[in-house]
């Protein structure tokens, strides 16, 4: 069964190559069917792998290079339940995205399908890999495919700019990653995560290891788009095709965070824990909360629907970084549930925006004002998505959020649940307000005000549909069902806790890799307490209130109007930082890495 892991990466790559060879003869229908079937096959393989892994690990050594005398030299895929689960989630989103894009306007077969399949192979492989350098290569495969997909509609200037910004910033991230790998190798002589962990357990910590860890974490933070590494994200998401956004927002950012947790728990924890754990936790938690708050606030002042959702994505990346950054078993469990539930919900919102584009040919809230009225199903899905991301009990995002709240309380971070409530409410309010403007025509309309931001995506769809194609509607409904289903079945929380239990146990991981596997049991998590319901219901109510304030400030009174205007004026300097100039983004990146390196060497070294 462990052969499934390499096959889940090799099959999509081979099919992509075959599609490329046959591009002259393959029509769009053939390419669509082949691509969907390949993604579905990958999904089946990753689910089988997930079942096979259970609470333990599955290890596959390439070329049969097993460890000898307790030293691992070979390259391996080392799959735990969290990695396999994330890979299955990526494949599921890819199946839905490919079905969704069969009728999407502006997609060229089979180039688009090739890129999507390589993108999936990179992400799946990254989740399964247990070798630092392999992670780097697959990380790059993922980035290159993403660059090509973001710049897909090259005739638009903004697409070109988004792709270039993404490519340059992520390439710098890749160099940081590689330098980190080189330094780790210099100190430990190993690239295998388990072997690095084993060596560090003996050798202990030193400054080179801390710098290496900082650089690797920075690379992942860039991919995950944590403040101040986030600037590329809104430019890229605004221009990518909606089905591509499904994957970018639903999975790619989260994969960066998975990378941080993976290298920490599997390789660096023996050197950093226990004396450095609390310092590292403080750094990650603080970065997460700043990102969450900043992203949510930016989402509220953004008119362009995709850009708004991009900032919602950034905000949730912050929340996930907070959850994973608690560096505890419950933190990881809660984050993985939250990633699933919220990933479905964000993908759902992007799917709705894509349908709007195909039907109405615009993505600016002001330009779409009230024009979405006839689209009842899409409207219902969009509002459901808005309520879900503000953590409506008892669905997917609620379950994840309450688990993270509990994990934070266990660490004594009492201020966190109310803060997370406000953050969820702000993101939810941005989505609900946009929905009310577009689908209900509430709030002031600005007919005379043609938004420049709107121009950039209006040409995405040349000829518009007068009804929503079923192949676009069905994946949208499936995403909604996913977001609801994650929380509706409570067994999910126990599964995630079991998976997290294995994930954070570095000695069990090493035992699995070097043979003599220890038996790992199932773990369970406590059900959400009454205050979890209160906080999450509070977030939903607050989201509705903030959305109403934004929509009807003029009618409510002068005080409300002044408040809204003050919020906009207050956000203006932050908005201006998003210049679209890649040089500015690189400067912010350098600053961020510098701060991170200073903090880490002072506290961990």
């Amino acid at each position: 069964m462990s052969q499934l892991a390499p096959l889940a990466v090799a099959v999509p790559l081979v099919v992509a190559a075959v599609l490329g060879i046959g591009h002259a003869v393959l029509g769009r229908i053939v390419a669509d069917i082949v691509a969907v079937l390949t993604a579905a096959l990958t999904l089946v393989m990753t689910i089988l792998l997930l079942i096979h892994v259970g609470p333990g690990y599955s290890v596959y050594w390439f070329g049969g290079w097993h460890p000898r005398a307790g030293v691992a030299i070979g390259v391996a895929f080392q799959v735990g339940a969290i990695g396999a689960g994330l890979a299955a989630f990526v494949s599921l989103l890819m199946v839905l995205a490919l079905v969704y894009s069969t009728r999407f306007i502006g997609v060229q077969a089979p180039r688009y399908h090739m890129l999507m399949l390589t993108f999936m192979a990179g992400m799946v492989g990254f989740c399964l890999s247990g070798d630092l350098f392999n992670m780097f290569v697959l990380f790059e495969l993922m980035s290159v495919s993403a660059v090509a997909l973001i710049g897909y509609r090259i005739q638009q200037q903004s697409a070109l700019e988004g792709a270039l910004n993404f490519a340059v910033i992520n390439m710098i991230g890749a160099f940081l990653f590689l330098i980190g790998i080189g330094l780790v190798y210099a100190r430990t002589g190993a690239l295998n995560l388990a072997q690095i962990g084993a060596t560090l357990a003996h050798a202990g910590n030193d400054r080179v290891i801390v710098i290496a860890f900082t650089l690797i974490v920075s690379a992942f933070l860039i991919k995950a788009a944590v403040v101040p590494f986030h600037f590329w994200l809104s430019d890229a998401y605004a221009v990518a095709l909606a089905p591509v956004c499904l994957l970018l927002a639903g999975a790619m950012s989260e994969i960066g965070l998975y990378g941080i947790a993976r290298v920490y728990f599997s390789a660096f924890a023996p050197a950093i824990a226990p004396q450095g754990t609390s310092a590292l936790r403080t750094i990650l938690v603080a970065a997460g909360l700043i990102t969450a708050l900043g992203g949510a606030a930016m989402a509220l002042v953004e008119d362009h629907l995709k850009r708004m959702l991009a900032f919602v994505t950034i905000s949730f990346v912050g929340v996930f970084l907070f959850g994973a950054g608690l560096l505890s078993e419950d933190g990881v469990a809660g984050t993985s549930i939250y990633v699933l539930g919220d990933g479905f919900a964000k993908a759902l919102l992007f799917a709705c925006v894509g349908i709007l584009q195909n039907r109405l040919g615009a993505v600016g809230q002001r330009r779409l004002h009230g024009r979405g009225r006839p689209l009842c199903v899409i409207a219902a899905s969009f509002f459901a998505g808005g309520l879900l991301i503000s953590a409506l009990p008892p669905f997917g995002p609620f379950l994840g959020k309450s688990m993270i709240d509990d994990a934070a309380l266990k660490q004594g971070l009492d201020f966190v649940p109310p803060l997370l409530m406000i953050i969820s409410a702000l993101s939810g309010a941005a989505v609900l307000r946009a929905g009310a403007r577009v689908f209900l025509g509430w709030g002031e309309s600005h007919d005379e005000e043609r938004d420049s931001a709107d121009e950039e995506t209006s040409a995405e769809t040349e000829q518009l549909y007068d009804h929503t194609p079923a192949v676009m509607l069905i994946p949208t409904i499936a995403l909604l069902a996913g977001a609801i289903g994650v929380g509706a079945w409570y067994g999910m929380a126990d599964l995630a806790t079991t998976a997290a239990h294995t994930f954070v146990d570095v000695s069990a991981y090493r035992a699995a890799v070097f043979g003599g596997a220890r038996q790992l049991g199932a773990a369970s998590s406590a059900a959400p307490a009454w205050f979890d319901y209160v906080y999450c219901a509070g977030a939903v109510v607050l989201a509705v209130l903030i959305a109403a304030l934004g929509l009807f400030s003029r009618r409510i009174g002068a005080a409300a109007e002044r408040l809204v205007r003050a919020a906009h004026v207050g956000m203006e300097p932050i908005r201006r930082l998003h210049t679209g100039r890649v040089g500015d983004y690189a400067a912010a990146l350098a600053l961020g890495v510098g701060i991170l390196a200073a903090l880490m060497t002072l506290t961990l070294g």
Partner: protein
Amino acid sequence: MSVYPYLIAVWLFGVGLWGVINSRNYLHLIMCLMVVQASTYVLLLSIGYVNHGTAPIYQGISTKALVVDPIVQALTLTDVVVEATVVALLLGLVVQASKRFGSIDPDAIVRMRD
């Protein structure tokens, strides 16, 4: 093994990044990015270097001979291949920018957006 190769790697990374931050031309920017990349080559190769070591090919020499580390050389080669792909893609994008919009100045492209 002396400290100079590491200093050179840091220097290359720094000047490359400085160039990326201040570049007014996409072509120049990509060249700066390749300077940053060169720092990773220097770093990786110096990590594997052994004084008086020979090439890690055991044909015709004793298996006990002192050789440099082949792993980092393999990493460097893979790095060259991977980044060549990215640079090719980036240059392709720049060619498109020049063809379609008549400018490869990042600032000019941003101004057109406003």
